[in-house]
């Protein structure tokens, strides 16, 4: 390896280690001119890459960061959305029907409740009526049996005496 080759290789090494200077670039271009026609492009590319790396990472604003994170990463999430929508629709229908039918809702008016109370009272009065009927019969049967027993007892004794 001759002296010239060593020098431009050192320049390349410095460029790779980001310790380059414009003098290095000029020297490198001149040294590689004979070796490769694309030396200019190579040097420019190395300089450009090195420059970009020197810029470093810039912290994005938080609002932009959130927007970037919220962008879907290509996965399809449509089925979840559809199920949620279907369930929401079904729940709404269910609630509408439930509220519409349930007498516990405010749709049951005072008049309807009063009618129910009157109906219940009527039902219980009929129950009372039936109860009275049976009570009268039971009392009547007991009275008859007691009377018969007493009459038979009295007459039986008087007949025995005679």
């Amino acid at each position: 390896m001759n002296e010239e080759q060593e020098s431009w290789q050192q320049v390349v090494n410095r460029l790779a280690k980001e310790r380059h200077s414009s003098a290095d670039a000029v020297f490198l271009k001149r040294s590689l001119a004979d070796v490769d026609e694309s030396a200019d492009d190579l040097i420019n590319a190395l300089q450009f890459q090195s420059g970009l790396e020197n810029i470093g990472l810039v912290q994005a604003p938080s609002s932009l960061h959130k927007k970037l994170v919220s962008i879907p990463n290509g996965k399809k999430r449509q089925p979840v959305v559809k199920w949620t929508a279907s369930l929401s629709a079904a729940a709404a229908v269910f609630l509408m029907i439930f509220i519409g039918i349930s007498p516990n809702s405010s749709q049951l008016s005072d008049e309807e409740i009063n009618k129910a109370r009157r109906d219940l009272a009527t039902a219980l009065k009929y129950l009372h009526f039936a109860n009275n009927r049976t009570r009268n019969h039971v009392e009547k049967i007991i009275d008859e049996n007691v009377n018969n027993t007493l009459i038979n007892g009295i007459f039986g004794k008087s007949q025995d005496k005679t």
Partner: protein
Amino acid sequence: MKILISLLIVFMTFSVTAKDREDYKSSPGFVEFGNLEGVYGEPKVEINLGGTILSLVGKISKHEDPELGDVIRNLDQVRVLVYELDDSATDALNQVDTITATLKSKQWLPIVSVNEELEKVRVYMHQNGDIVDGMVVMVVDATANNKKKRKEAVFINIVGEINPEQLSQLTDSLDIDVNI
């Protein structure tokens, strides 16, 4: 697909509501009186109070009388059918016998039974352990022969937890004037 799911849920909702309404029919305290209209014609009085309305009336009545409210809330159904009888009450009296036979076959307990020529009274109860969960009262009275007192048949079925003593208290507590 969405429409299908929505329809399915609507159908299920209606089924559940209908089931709730018909639930008392599966209760052991429920009695099917059969085709009474075929025998007596249109009922003079028809009362059919379901569990939901009774529960609501019970809740409201609880503010006035807590004990009364509880009695009403424990009832699942109150059904009363009153029919006016024609001159002949034979069909009506036979109908009572038919229903009585059904009650006996289902282990109902006879409480009161009156058998007169023109009058029949039956009171039956259904027990589940110590709890009375059904009551049937049938009265066919063909003894009346004037306009003030008409011949009539009364069929009552009460489903739910019943305390007969509390029921009589309830009649007075409701304090509603009813002419029967």
